[in-house]
């Protein structure tokens, strides 16, 4: 069971985010996270929304923009070893539908969180900074860019 045994897709990671049912599972996962946070008794609704937003953006940052390479060996001599999952999506082609979906979903979450926190200043600062940490790495100009050499190797 290795990559390249049964198909000529060099890096299966590029296709994972656009396979059938992935978007739905992702939306359901975020929904589940929010419901779990809402059911904690001492957490109020605005705090629950901000927490959902922040935890979701933290998870997205770690899995899409911090972890590099593939969890399996690929037959292309490691071309994707220094690339994050976001950079590997669709072999680096920008503005594909899964990239658009994963850019829009934190924005929607941000809108919902701002509405439910009634635009309170502390919540606003928290939500906006966490949205920026997740939106800026997705810009095409930042494809392959490592600021200050962080996370380069």
């Amino acid at each position, binding site marked *: *069971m*290795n*990559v*390249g*045994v*049964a*198909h*000529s*897709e*060099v*890096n*299966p990671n*590029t*296709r*994972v985010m*656009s*396979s*059938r*049912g*992935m978007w*739905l*599972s992702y939306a*359901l*996962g975020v929904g589940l996270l929010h419901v779990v946070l809402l059911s904690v008794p001492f957490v109020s609704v605005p705090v629950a929304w901000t927490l959902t937003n922040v935890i979701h953006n933290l998870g997205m940052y770690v899995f899409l923009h911090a*972890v*590099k*390479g*593939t*969890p*399996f*060996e690929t*037959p*292309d001599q*490691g*071309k994707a*070893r220094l690339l994050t999952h976001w950079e590997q999506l*669709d*072999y680096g*082609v920008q503005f*594909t*539908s899964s990239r658009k979906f994963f850019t829009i979903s934190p924005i929607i979450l941000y809108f919902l969180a701002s509405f439910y926190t009634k635009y309170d200043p502390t919540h606003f600062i928290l939500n906006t900074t966490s949205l920026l940490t997740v939106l800026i790495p997705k810009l095409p100009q930042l494809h392959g860019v490592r600021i200050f050499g962080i996370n380069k190797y």
Partner: protein
Amino acid sequence: IHHIVQNGGLYKKPFNEAFEETPMLVAVLTYVGYGVLTLFGYLRDFLRQWKIEKCQNATEREEQKDFVPLYQDFENFYNRNLYMRIRDSWNRPICSVPGAKVDVIERVSHDYNWTFTYTGRVIKDVINMGSYNYLGFAQNNGACQEAAAEVLSQYGAGVCSTRQEMGNLDKHEELEKLVARFLGVESAMTYGMGFATNSMNIPALVGKGCLILSDELNHASLVLGARLSGATIRIFKHNNMQSLEKLLKDAIVHGQPRTRRPWKKILILVEGIYSMEGSIVRLPEVIALKKKYKSYLYLDEAHSIGALGPTGRGVVEYFGLNPEDVDVLMGTFTKSFGAAGGYIGGKKELIDYLRTHSHSAVYATSLSPPVVQQIITSMKCIMGEDGTTLGKACVQQLAENTRYFRRRLKEMGFIIYGNEDSPVVPLMLYMPAKIGAFGREMLKRNIGVVVVGFPATPIIESRARFCLSAAHTKEILDTALKEISEVGDLLQLKYSRHRLVPLLDRPFDETTYEETED
């Protein structure tokens, strides 16, 4: 309900292929499964790193911790966290000839599959649904074995030389004439290893400045051969003739990428039966396209030679076409003939060229004599030239087994991929836990199966693959079907909603991206 594709009369009989789509609930649960496994994998890696749990992987030595790391830990993540958990379904040691039934050495693991110990017992008469034993020639008694033993005592076990030096025996010449006669081509050449036949001969046929159009699901040997050749590779969607035609048109209109010069050669690489999907290539349409756009066709009949067609001549005979239309007919002796090695058949000039220019002919040792005799005996048996009707009976038995097995599995409600006539039957499992569970439960019930998962297949398409054989009698198949149904009920594998999706169910959309090499 059969969908007959009458594409201007190209197909002489119905071409039924179905790839039922993954049910949405199953896909979501599969992702949940992989997500949970990933999270637990991260947790276990954390524990191993902080020495809370003993690390049983290979690690670098303490003295070398400050050096640049030799391995990247993350590339092994899948291996140590997912594959290790279900590793006992693969690499099972066997201790008898793998015919219709095989003896498997029993092994247990006390540390969750990191190490195995043999209990000392042997599980006898496990029904073998994993060997590519299509015509049942995997035997250690019978006419093939006696002839091979005689040749062994006469010629010895090994040749110890390449074809071009001292390794060209009269047995090889006899075999090549026989293979050419079997396939209906002018001339043929044989090689010692099936994988090497593809990977060493495609570089001899195409080079830089040529274009290779290869199917999405081609085998690793074809992919390796294509990459070694240095030609430009473009991939078309699996068995999708619109995709292939579009690529051909684009190639001819636009020429080579920057210089716009015409391509020196265009070679289409397809396989007869795709072993992971069980689908058969749409050969009439491919040949029509090849003639229209004046390109060459390389057909890899590794699984289909001997297994398809009324007399076992392969996919060309199955569709009733002329073998001279296919430029390069490649195949292996590993599957239906019970031997080893591969062959290439075609026009005499082509084969003479390959005799001098192929890497296998120049550098690799030739086939060993007893193996050659096994191929000769089994091929004569299939052709009926040994005086019995055993060969024809085997081919017919395989076709009957295929139809019966597939029909029964579909009736039970499993999702089965592929063409109705292909002896390779993939049964969809989807979830990662079910891969391991299916393998183990079937072994408990004395049936050995092959299971495959991510990343060898797409993430939501893990499967169990059954390979039918003419050596399987109806009783064996009935036992197997009963057990499969039981396990299917236990693991809830009967997903099919009996919606026969039309043949163009894999819609041709432009939105897949491939790695471009400049």
